[in-house]
């Protein structure tokens, strides 16, 4: 049962984590600074911010940007603990693989020597620091956008930016059905557990897992065919038509002005 317990625990905690990370409907509806902005403006300016973060060459500027992100998060009624948990959860995944070698192999003036043999250079520490802060800032912007914008509005914004409709529809459907399939997988594990006494060998567990994955795939295939029929039934003819009920307000223009000024300052600071 050891293997099954491990699998079951992981599938259920994955489902739970994914749901809690993505299901932030209440936060999206809060009356905060970013929630009040047009999603197109938000998507465009946040992409601009992420590009600027990629261009930044100073550790202090990147640190200032992170403080600015925390301020935006606070003004958008996103609690700092909740926000940091979501950002810090992913940073090691994105940075560890690249930052660690950069820390150890970049040539330059020695800063610290570990066990007399492994030397961390000043340039290595700076490169790793830059990478860490760039990833942190970029990810923070992404997380802040997701937390303060309903997924549906992000999709509307993407359509407005002429992202191919098929791609946007696939994104929308993936988001919609991922929970259903995860719950199905979870139920299969629970159903197996309810009929099991004793333990299985690792090989048996792996074979069962392979069968469960195949069944889930077959179910998802059937589901996708049925969803397609349901779309056809209501008039779908190959391209989804949507309501574009968005309109720009004064605060959107002010935000764009702020974003452009902030980006200009950052570009200018790179030349100092």
């Amino acid at each position: 049962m050891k293997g099954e317990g491990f699998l079951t625990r992981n599938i259920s905690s994955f489902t739970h984590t994914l749901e809690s990370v993505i299901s932030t409907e209440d936060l999206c509806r809060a009356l905060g600074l970013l929630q009040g902005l047009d999603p197109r403006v938000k998507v465009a300016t946040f992409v601009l911010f992420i590009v600027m973060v990629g261009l930044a060459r100073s550790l202090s500027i990147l640190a200032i940007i992170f403080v600015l992100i925390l301020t935006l998060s606070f003004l958008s009624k996103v609690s700092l603990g909740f926000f940091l948990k979501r950002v810090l959860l992913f940073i090691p995944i994105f940075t560890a693989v690249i930052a660690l070698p950069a820390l150890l192999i970049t040539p330059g003036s020695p800063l610290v020597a570990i066990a007399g043999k492994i030397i961390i250079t000043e340039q290595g520490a700076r490169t790793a620091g830059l990478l860490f802060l760039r990833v942190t800032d970029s990810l923070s912007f992404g997380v802040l956008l997701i937390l303060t914008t309903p997924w549906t509005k992000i999709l509307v914004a993407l359509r407005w930016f002429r992202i191919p409709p098929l791609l946007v529809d696939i994104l929308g459907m993936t988001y919609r059905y991922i929970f259903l399939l995860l719950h199905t997988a979870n139920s299969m594990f629970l159903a197996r557990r309810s009929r099991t006494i004793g333990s299985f060998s690792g090989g048996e567990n792996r074979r069962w897992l392979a069968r469960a994955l195949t069944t889930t795939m077959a179910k998802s295939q059937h589901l996708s065919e049925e969803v397609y029929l349901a779309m056809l039934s209501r008039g779908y003819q190959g391209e989804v038509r949507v309501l574009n009920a968005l309109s720009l307000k004064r605060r959107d223009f002010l935000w764009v002005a702020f974003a452009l000024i902030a980006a200009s300052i950052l570009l200018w600071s790179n030349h100092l």
Partner: protein
Amino acid sequence: MSTLDTGHIFEAKNLNYNYPGDIAALRQINFTIGAGELVALVGANGSGKSTLLKLLDGLIFPTGGELLAFGQLLSEKTLKDRTFVAEFRRSVGLVFQDPDVQLFSSTVWDEVTFGPLQLGISKDEVLSRGKEVLKLLNIAHLRERPPYLLSGGEKKKVSLASVLSLHPQVLLLDEPTTGLDPWSQGNLIDFLLQWADKGKSMVFSTQDLDIVEEIATRVIVMGTEHNILADGKPEEFLSDPDFLLRTNLVHEHSHRHRELVHRHPHLHEYQHQH
């Protein structure tokens, strides 16, 4: 529905449908459904009720025989005609059995406006229909909610609303009361009766004979051989316990009344007499 004949809604002539591998789903189906009829499709599991509803909605096509809708052949070829398909989809709406199949949009509002938008209805009309169906089914408070966070009863209501916003002349429903609690079932039946009062047509599959009694003006009984066993008025069949037993629509059960143990078909309105 300007150019379509609204006298005969559906006409099936020697209709057959096989799933891949020549697995029969429907055999030699013949019927005509007229405007204003409220038809219940009843039959055992696997008798082909859901398949027939998909055929009536032009989502799959017969492998033998013919199916006409509003006097016109319903085929892959005719449904490629943009004018015909738009008129057909405006006139016929199917509520799927599983709301998770039906509700693919990101919010309830997107769901109820999806159909009218795809059919090229004007923006003002789409907005007005969306608000109308949300009010009609008392689900205006769910407007911005994602469908996957709704309860089973709410999902069913949103599924129905998403089809009613098409303003169909014919409503097809696949097991509409399955999975609903008795209160929600009652509400749904009341709503469907009111809706049908406006001269609309309805074809619904069900295994719940109570809803047949309450709604249907005609019953088509499907057999395990995927054919039609009987077609007529509900009272003709519901008062014949032997027929209901033979067609797997009721089961015989035994139970105790103090000292007396007896067996009888389990059917409420007509046969449950002691």
